[in-house]
């Protein structure tokens, strides 16, 4: 999957081009005995409606998501550049890989927060609390 998006410069009077992020991502999907959404694979959906001008392109992304939903993303690679034309452009690579996948009985107790643990108060920033 190749994705490129441009952000308007923060200063309204800026003469610079859009700050462009460009990434090429590959996903390996396997239909496991138990499938789940791998949150370390960077898949998300916006909460707000996209502008009309972007919806057709986003629809392509949703088509890709249908392929990813056929199993679990067991490997993911992404490489690209963040913020070309901005003050600090950054090249990056990100990878995630699951290995040693085995069927096994799992103790359900491991999916419970220990009773003596307490909920941390909100930290005030970020989108915490739900998932994309």
């Amino acid at each position, binding site marked *: 999957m190749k*994705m490129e998006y441009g952000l308007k410069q923060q200063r309204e009077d800026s003469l610079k081009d859009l700050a462009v992020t460009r990434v090429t991502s590959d996903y390996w999907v396997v239909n496991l005995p138990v499938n789940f959404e791998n949150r370390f694979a960077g898949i998300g959906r916006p909460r707000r409606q996209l502008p009309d001008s972007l919806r057709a392109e986003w629809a392509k992304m949703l088509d890709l998501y249908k392929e990813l939903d056929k199993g679990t993303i067991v490997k993911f690679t992404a490489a690209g550049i963040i913020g070309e*034309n901005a003050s600090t452009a950054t090249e990056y690579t990100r990878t995630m890989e699951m290995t040693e996948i085995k069927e096994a009985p799992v103790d359900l107790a491991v999916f419970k927060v220990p009773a003596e643990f307490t909920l941390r108060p909100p930290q005030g920033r970020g989108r*915490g609390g739900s998932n994309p």
Partner: protein
Amino acid sequence: MRYRVALLSLAIATSVASAQTQSGITFKVRTQLRNHPVPEKSKPDSARIRRLEMAAAARAADISTSGDAPPAGGRGNGAGGNTGVNRIMMMTGSAVKGNHRMDVTGIVGDGQTELTASQWALFTDTTTTVIDDVQHMYWPRVFDIGSILAFTGQVDAQNSRVGTLNVS
């Protein structure tokens, strides 16, 4: 005979109580982020813009002079400084239908990975919770990883600056 039946019942009850298991999977996970700045593709703002900015600042002391860098560092894509980063996180995981969990087993780098060494994460189909064994606390969390989430974060931002999108 009654005694045998009672013993059998007790054995079954003990078995059920001690083994609340479900068929699932176990696995290991390794994540890595590497990045570095590329000055040749960066464009510090022009001298003209700087002059305008200085003039505006002279007229109004409360004018915003925030920079024009994209929010690259804040959502896990990792424009994490001027020298670049190499962050690796290893985890073990287990999953049953509707729930999975990942526990940190090792971290390499500057410690700015999504989870710290004392944390683990619980996932349902719709939620993510981080649990810290040192603080004895837990909290909901979204892992901001990769450019897709950086994009959706921009769309959701109060003052969205998304101008273009191309997908292929």
